[in-house]
């Protein structure tokens, strides 16, 4: 019963949060809602017994990713309302719904026929983190290392890309200097 209550509660919260993220015209609201949604998702992981994944979710998304986004948003003018496409609303809704239905069908098909066999079965008396660790460092060692390298590369790339002309600070500059910089920007 507790599980059901928790599931419906968090499901409602997640959907609501993400709905806000997608629909709001204020970038700050969107960011906040996204961060909240991420945390609510980690709740599902905990419910499902994937403790490790839940922890990672909180650390990575609400910690690292959101921090990155927050930094990113500082670059842009977030006070303005975000312009939206003047697209056909029916197409958007139609395509999304169709996709959703199809995915459900695809996932449902093998479920009904019940022909899935566990490759790495969960051992009953071992903790989730322990199990994850064992598999991560045996079967998935190489992908894991590759992912590590990928993250490193992404980090370096992010710094290199964003860090160009980081030595200039707009807050410390006078308004004329900022004008000049802006002209330069336009010219370049």
């Amino acid at each position, binding site marked *: 019963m507790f599980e059901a209550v928790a599931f419906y509660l968090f499901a409602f919260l*997640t959907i609501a949060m993400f709905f806000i993220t997608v629909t709001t015209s204020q970038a700050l609201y969107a960011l906040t809602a996204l961060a909240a949604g991420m945390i609510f998702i980690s709740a599902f992981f905990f419910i499902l017994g994937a403790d490790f994944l839940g922890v990672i979710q909180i650390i990575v998304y609400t910690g690292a990713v959101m921090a990155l986004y927050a930094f990113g948003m500082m670059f842009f003018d977030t006070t303005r309302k975000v312009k939206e496409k003047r697209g056909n609303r029916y197409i958007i809704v139609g395509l999304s719904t169709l996709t959703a239905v199809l995915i459900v069908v695809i996932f449902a098909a093998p479920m009904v026929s019940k022909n899935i066999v566990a490759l790495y079965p969960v051992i009953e008396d071992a903790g989730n983190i322990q199990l994850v660790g064992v598999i991560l460092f045996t079967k998935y060692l190489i992908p894991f290392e590759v992912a590590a390298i990928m993250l490193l590369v992404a980090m370096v790339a992010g710094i290199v890309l964003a860090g160009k002309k980081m030595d200039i600070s707009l807050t410390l500059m006078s308004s004329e200097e900022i004008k000049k910089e802006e002209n330069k920007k336009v010219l370049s």
Partner: protein
Amino acid sequence: MEIGLNHYLVLSTILFAIGLAGVIKRKNLLLLFFATEILLNSVNIAFAAISHYYGDLTGQMFAFFIIAIAASEVAVGLGLLIVWYKRHGNIDLETMKSMRG
């Protein structure tokens, strides 16, 4: 009322649909990134749920790698975004037409 796998899958697809709607609708590149995060996370839920109900850890592993990929994507993507903004002064999708065929 027992919560089964199907509940999670439906939730996952609803979130996916929301994310997809965002992808189509958003014009601001930053907010587009938000929408892709939603897509990735909806899939993560599905993976974790399947992993749980079938007693197989592979699903969790995939979710884990997806998180790693999402993080890298955000790092590089934001970097590119900043470069673009510095050069053009906006991050509007409609202005990105240099790939016109």
